[in-house]
């Protein structure tokens, strides 16, 4: 038998590395296999029976993976025409054998690659080329503590990155974590402790250049500043939302390095999809402990067991879970339900601490269950150099005996890494080429404009919400002089974050370079972010945490220190804040201060003669840095659902006749599967029984819509109202999917917003119910309308 020839097209594919098998013409069961099957047709190996075209001999060294035949005779006939040593697979039970053969072939290829590597490493390799160079801008905006930075180019060949440290770390406990992600995989991860965060460029090397075909690359950055540390990295432009100061180098395949700060364990892991939830395993529960409550785990039917905590009247309880590696998770999720008890008098706080710093947990603040008894908390995990964190729950029950069900406690990948859909961002630019990206020209840029509610917003802020500081959101350090009052029902708002939206002005410089090569796959939709615009993960509003600070003043001695002052809060001599506090204490994990009385209603909005508990001075012992992140409050059923970071009640207004009332709501960090909005403002109103939402386009209102819906205008400017009796017409005006997602997201969180806003406004339980009912009514009307 003479050797088979092979069709020229098939040979080209084989030479390019396409895995192929050869089968006898009669072999069945090969249809639909995700591998190329060649068959001899008149002595030529071809992919299709009827294929024609030039045929050539099989070159030496190129061979198919295997041959497949139904019997030994057929196999022998095929083998006679193929190069020696092509393995034979049985047609019967082909799949397992084929998988084993592919694994073996992959191992062979890896071995060959290793051999090549060693050979290349022994040779001189061309110096790396700098493909992105975006120098730091003096006094540029402070990048958010958690950010996603698209690189605007394929990851192929990237051998090194550098970020620029503007202010060096003072504390060794500060931690910068960086991941280079492409094609859904982590190409490299770095953890840099504070002692290595010196001013200047910080090089982050890869052990070898990133392989080709990995897709568009982006960086995920998390900077967790320790208490009192003002460390920050630099921006590469003067305007808010500017990209990070950044250098990127590419190198030839033989460029090998033993990288510093490299997290080998994270390398080549799949980047977890946002919203992936990993419930704590049975082993974690078995090692958990409870104080102050009776715990029982119960499973009904085939569900996973759930913990029920029986809380006696007046109980203060704590649930501690063993430390565990957080892996790629960046959120702790809690879902709880009050099965018994007074929902207004049970409060829950979720705490997470790195094992290195158990006394400095990050926490959610005290949370109460919603009108249906449910509670969802998402807490960004603190940085832990070891990657291990311990979760705790603190619960207090000021009411009658209660039973709290812990439906789920889980780690999750959250909003970090979710590209922000930014309608104003121009289409992706071609990747930057060796020439440096031009720094933004300051002269051409408008001044950075904070997009948060300006202090001059029409509504008076509630008395308990201090005026937000006007500087941009810092990653962690709290402005030392910013007074804060603990108000769990309505956490104080974070400082206004800089608007991440790029300035739409045409003169705004875009990254570009004359030598730019076109993007390899122009037809594929690119990530919605522009190449070097920074996509902000909901900012970590450092000073917003109402309860805890790492360095608390000592507990007042004496009986029942049930109201403990906070750093950044009122001085001990002032009247106590409304709720008891979690107090970190040196040498112990934390202490729960005893509540003295049932929860009072939150203080009413400032009114003449009512002294709001505004703190008088910053505390002595609390320089800065509250825990760096406020939690996300989740809206509805799943942890992947819509959430918001913070809510500020601008105003609760009732007209004289009682025919009109509204809650003017400012939402920070609204996250939904379909988008992320830094600032949203809306009024939930009731006008003679008509419930609706009002959005305005005017000073003091963020730009929320891609395209302003409708044409309605009044004395104050354009407005758009969504009213419950006839929602469909209004909804039909929403022009883009992103705008529709915004309204859907707002409606989803609206009942929760109403609860919190009513609490902030000091409304009665009945009034609160009424507002929540209105929110539900509107959401139901929209659902009923058949929209979406």
């Amino acid at each position, binding site marked *: 038998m003479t050797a088979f020839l092979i069709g020229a097209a098939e040979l080209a594919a084989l030479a390019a590395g396409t895995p192929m098998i050869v089968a006898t013409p009669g072999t069945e069961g090969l249809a639909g296999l995700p591998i190329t099957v060649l068959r001899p047709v008149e002595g030529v190996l071809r992919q299709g029976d009827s294929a024609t075209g030039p045929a050539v001999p099989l070159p030496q060294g190129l061979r198919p993976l295997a041959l497949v035949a139904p019997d030994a005779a057929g196999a022998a006939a095929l083998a006679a025409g193929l190069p020696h040593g092509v393995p034979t697979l049985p047609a019967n039970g082909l799949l397992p054998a084929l998988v084993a053969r592919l694994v073996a072939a992959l191992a062979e290829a890896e071995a060959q690659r290793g051999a090549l590597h060693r050979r290349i490493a022994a040779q001189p390799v061309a110096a790396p080329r700098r493909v992105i160079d975006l120098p730091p801008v003096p006094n540029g905006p402070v990048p958010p503590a958690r950010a996603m930075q698209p690189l605007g180019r394929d990851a192929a060949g990237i051998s090194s990155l550098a970020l620029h440290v503007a202010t060096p770390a003072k504390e060794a406990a500060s931690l910068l974590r960086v991941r280079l992600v492409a094609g859904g995989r982590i190409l490299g991860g770095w953890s840099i402790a504070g002692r290595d965060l010196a001013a200047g460029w910080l090089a982050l090397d890869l052990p070898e250049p990133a392989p080709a075909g990995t897709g568009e690359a982006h960086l995920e950055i998390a900077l967790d500043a320790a208490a009192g540390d003002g460390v920050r990295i630099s921006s590469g432009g003067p305007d808010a939302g500017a990209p990070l100061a950044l250098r990127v180098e590419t190198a030839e395949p033989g460029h090998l390095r033993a990288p510093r700060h490299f997290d080998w364990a994270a390398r080549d892991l799949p980047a977890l999809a946002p919203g992936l939830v990993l419930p704590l395993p049975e082993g974690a529960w078995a090692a958990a402990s409870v104080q102050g409550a009776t715990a029982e785990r119960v499973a009904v039917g*085939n569900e996973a067991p759930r913990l*029920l905590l029986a809380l006696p009247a007046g109980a203060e309880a704590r649930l501690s879970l063993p430390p565990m590696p957080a892996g790629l998770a960046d959120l702790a999720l809690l879902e709880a339900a009050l*099965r018994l008890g007074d929902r207004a008098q049970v409060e829950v706080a979720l705490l997470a601490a790195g094992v290195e710093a158990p006394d400095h947990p990050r926490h959610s603040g005290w949370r109460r269950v919603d009108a249906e008894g449910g509670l969802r908390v998402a807490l960004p995990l603190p940085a832990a150099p070891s990657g291990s964190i311990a979760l705790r729950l603190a619960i207090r029950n000021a009411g009658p*005996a209660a039973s709290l069900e812990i439906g789920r406690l889980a780690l999750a990948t959250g909003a970090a890494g979710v590209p922000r859909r930014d309608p104003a961002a121009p289409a992706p630019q071609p990747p930057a080429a060796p020439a440096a990206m031009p720094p933004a020209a300051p002269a051409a840029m408008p001044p950075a404009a904070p997009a948060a509610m300006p202090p001059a917003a029409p509504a008076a802020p509630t008395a308990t919400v201090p005026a937000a500081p006007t500087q941009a959101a810092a990653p962690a350090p709290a402005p030392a002089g910013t007074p804060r009052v603990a108000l769990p029902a309505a956490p104080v708002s974070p400082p206004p974050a800089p608007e991440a939206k790029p300035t739409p002005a045409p003169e705004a410089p875009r990254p570009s370079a004359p030598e730019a090569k076109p993007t390899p796959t122009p037809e594929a939709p690119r990530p919605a972010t522009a190449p070097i615009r920074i996509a902000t993960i909901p900012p970590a509003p450092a000073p917003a945490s109402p309860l805890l600070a790492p360095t608390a003043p000592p507990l007042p001695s004496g009986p029942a220190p049930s109201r403990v002052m906070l750093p950044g809060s009122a001085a001990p001599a002032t009247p106590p804040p409304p709720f008891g506090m979690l107090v970190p204490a040196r040498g112990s994990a934390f202490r729960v201060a005893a509540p003295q009385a049932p929860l009072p209603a939150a203080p009413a909005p400032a009114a003449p003669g009512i002294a709001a508990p505004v703190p008088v001075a910053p505390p002595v012992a609390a320089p800065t840095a509250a825990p760096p992140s406020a939690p996300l409050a989740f809206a509805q059923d799943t942890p992947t659902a819509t959430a918001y970071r913070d809510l500020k009640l601008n105003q609760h207004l009732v007209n004289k006749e009682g025919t009109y009332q509204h809650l003017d709501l400012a939402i920070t960090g609204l996250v939904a599967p379909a988008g992320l909005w830094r600032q949203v403002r809306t009024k939930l109103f009731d006008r003679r029984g008509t419930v609706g939402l009002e959005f305005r386009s005017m000073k003091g209102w963020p730009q929320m819509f891609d395209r302003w819906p409708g044409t309605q205008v009044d004395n104050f400017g354009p407005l758009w109202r969504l009213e419950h009796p006839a929602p469909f017409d209004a909804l039909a005006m929403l022009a883009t999917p992103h705008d529709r997602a915004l309204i859907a997201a707002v409606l989803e969180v609206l009942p929760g917003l109403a609860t919190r806003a009513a609490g902030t406004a000091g409304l009665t339980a009945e009034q609160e119910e009424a507002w929540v009912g209105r929110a539900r009514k509107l959401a139901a009307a929209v659902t009923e309308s058949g929209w979406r």
Partner: protein
Amino acid sequence: MALTPPRHVRRLLVPLPSTRFGGTERHTAELAARLGQHGVAVTLAAEPALLPLLAAAMPPGQPAPRLLPARLGWDDAVPPAVAIARQRAGTEALLVAESPDLVLLPLPWPDAGLGVMRAVAGRGLPRLVALHLAAEGPPPPAIATELPALDAEGAAWAAVSAPVARRAAAAFGLAPSRITVIDNPAPRAGTEGRDAARAALRTRLGLRDDQPLLIFVGRLEEAKGADLLPALTDRLNLPIAVLGDGLLLGHLEAEARGDPRGLLRLMGQVADPGPWYRAADALILPSRLEGAPLVFLEAAAHHCPVVASPAALEGLGPDAPRLARLAAAGDAAALADAARALLADPAGTAAMVARAAAEAARRSWPRALGAWLGQLRLAAALASPHHAPLAFPETAA
């Protein structure tokens, strides 16, 4: 304190102390079926006569729970002590045969299951009492007699509406917060086929296409206000189609025969009232006592306007006037006024129907099932040997 190993509730016994079939029983059948889907082995024990009706009420296309004949029906004809002893004996036999992990006890009336409660409490079994109806006024004396042996604090309690919860708490000496309200779910429905149903049913009744049609759905008894129907037809001079069966059937038939206009149309029990809701201009709900009327939720889900007595929709609380046209009182005159007002205000009625449909849509089975499962877990935790007795200051006093 370390956590103890989990408790698993795999076998659930549902002893139903009913003697007839209504909303409580329909709800129980559906809940039992859905708990079965959740992986619980459910046994639903009831009077033999009820079993076919319970089986028919199970949601279609799902594996039905095991149905077991048991003499558990509360017998009003004998003294309470005798009824309790019979129920208790029947329950003891069931508990021995079934060895359930947990007992879910649906109560169509607060004292309907005292014998079951005695038996289950005597064994210290975890139990969840589901209260469907309770009347205002002094609680049945039998409850007070039995209360010391019921260990009411050791059970979990749920009710289908706030008034039922409040009255039952008073009857069983519980703090109001001990009884959790779980809204009754509404069926999934819509307005599809509305025009066809209107035309078909009007043809069947011999009505003109534009003639208003009112319907009554429910048992024909005084508690449901069925006795008011003849007077209502007189005052409204409109036809009312009556869907249901019951003690008052003979009386209503005589009234119907005596009316030359033929306005009272007795249709008997109807397997699927859906087309009737879609065809009708309003549902008349003149009940004198309701827990959380499923008939209202069915009508709301089908976008059928409802005219109701205040007592009928008491369970909806302050929302009731938004969701139905409430009569000023429970008599025929007030109901007739309310019906006329509803028919005269199509715009207001349409808005009201939309609100009611939204409320029905909110009350989904998945939502209710989650709440029921939560109370089952609570029941298991409350009866646990590890569980310290809860101190309820307001009941201790």
